[in-house]
């Protein structure tokens, strides 16, 4: 599958934003109001900023961005529509939570209910992003039980490292945050390894013989393509640039996540090391997301000569 760069930016940026938002809600639930107004506002602006940048960039790959509002209408059947609705709806409790949690408008008894609502909606939004891909039966690598967990785990891991980074900048960096962030980084590593293991093990059991129905006669291969230059279906579904580098890129994701864990540990002694940890986690998320697209093979490639899918 062709990786649209706006979709990679969208899913990693808004994923990190929703992960951060959900974790800020957790902080609100356990600690009440933010330690300082400046910290609370900065964290909320970064969370909502990442979400907003992501959502805006997701409209860049549309043929008609001005019609994007129409995507809110088909939530009964479409996970893409559900994602859009959840993303928009989440803003309301998120802004209210940010206002009371940061201390801009002190209302201590509202923090917990707003934190629960915002946190649940944030995680549901990330889950629905994963569902868009997981429900596509046409792409074996996405139609997989781990897909949704990959999206959730990377959202929370990048969110947690960003939370640690912000906290370290504000000079109040409890050792607990190191273990907390690292737990999410390790969880993301475990989930992505399980996902890769699962897609590598899944049989490529659809063949060109089945797709054409000509297997009843014999062995089928492509003799003539129906065009003179590659068409939309081949460019969009047949993208295979990273497939041959998959093993290297997978190692890069693993190394980046392990380094992020080590950098977070270094944060116990070295100031601002958590910033580097967050950068590494985001880098790992971007490479993983690119691979997620580039490694995915679409069933329709069978009609264009692929032997199996």
């Amino acid at each position, binding site marked *: 599958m062709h990786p649209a760069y706006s979709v990679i930016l969208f899913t990693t940026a808004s994923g990190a934003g929703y992960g951060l938002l959900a974790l800020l809600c957790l902080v609100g639930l356990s600690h009440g109001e933010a330690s300082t107004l400046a910290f609370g506002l900065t964290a909320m602006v970064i969370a909502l900023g990442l979400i907003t940048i992501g959502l805006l960039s997701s409209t860049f790959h549309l043929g008609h961005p001005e019609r994007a509002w129409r995507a809110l*209408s088909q939530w009964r059947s479409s996970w893409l529509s559900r994602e859009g609705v959840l993303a928009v709806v989440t803003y309301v409790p998120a802004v209210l939570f940010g206002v009371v949690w940061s201390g801009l408008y002190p209302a201590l008894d509202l923090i917990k209910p707003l934190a629960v609502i915002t946190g649940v909606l944030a995680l549901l939004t990330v889950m629905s992003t994963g569902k868009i891909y997981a429900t596509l039966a046409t792409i074996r690598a996405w139609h997989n039980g781990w897909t949704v967990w990959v999206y959730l785990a990377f959202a929370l891991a990048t969110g947690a490292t960003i939370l640690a980074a912000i906290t370290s900048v504000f000079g109040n960096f409890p050792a607990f945050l190191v273990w907390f962030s690292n737990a999410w980084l390790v969880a993301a590593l475990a989930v992505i390894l399980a996902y890769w293991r699962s897609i590598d093990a899944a049989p490529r059991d659809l063949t060109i013989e089945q797709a054409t129905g000509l297997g009843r006669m014999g062995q089928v291969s492509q003799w003539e393509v129906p065009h003179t230059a590659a068409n939309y279906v081949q460019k969009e579904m047949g993208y295979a640039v990273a497939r041959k580098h998959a093993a290297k890129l997978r190692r890069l994701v693993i190394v980046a996540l392990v380094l992020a864990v080590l950098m977070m540990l270094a944060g116990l002694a070295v100031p601002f090391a958590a910033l580097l940890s967050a950068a590494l986690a985001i880098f790992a998320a971007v490479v993983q997301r690119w691979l997620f697209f580039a490694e995915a093979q679409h069933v329709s490639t069978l009609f264009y000569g692929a032997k199996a899918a």
Partner: protein
Amino acid sequence: MTSLPPPTARKLGLVIDLDTCVGCQACVTSCKEWNTQGYSAPLTDEHTQGAEATGVWLNRVHGYEVREAGQDQSRIVHFPRSCLHCEEPACVTVCPTGASYKRAEDGIVLVNPETCIGCKLCSWACPYGAREYDQSHGVMKKCTLCVDRIYNDNLGEDDRLPACVKACPTSARHFGDLGDSSSKVSQLVAERGGYDLLPEMGYKPVNKYLPPRARRDATTSRAEALPKPDGSAFDRLFQWADKVLSPGKGSARANEVDHSGKLEG
């Protein structure tokens, strides 16, 4: 609404005969000609004067080589592909805007070009690669089953057919109601063992493909299959004429086919 209508009684679709299709591309060009000014207009082409000419086509004819067990020659099957107007089209249910829809009255799957946002998700959901995105128009294009021909009162009755069906010189394409078991297309499917593409995907395509018949060239076009001289007066006359007319070398028997590929004389 991108939720599907209840199962439609009428299931308009195509039956494509892989035995008689000769790969002439007439259906491809007539589809383009009609639809670039019809419901899905325009079907944009890009770089038409360059080496990388590309464009939106709703119907494409592939060629596949099939190696049959026990045959020394492989066989070419011309294979037209367009939207199959599935009964369970996930391309419709994934659409976030309602631009993609399946008509309750006849089962035709359409895209409304006025409300499509061009997110391409429907093309990802189609296992058949039947939808093509129009870069310059910013919306998804697909076969409309010539909805603007088949119900068009301005056309004569025998023109109220999809352009591809109308154009096919070998009658390899048939149009009709596959929901009606007594229709001509349904009977054709029953007689010839018409099949679904990728039934294991669960999309329940309406369009059906008729498999190529068993190859006949073994009995019709090979030298040993041709009639042998029967020793009649006419045969002897032709053999004599052949001998007289052939310069030098010994004569060939009448009706013997020369497979050497060399020109005589």
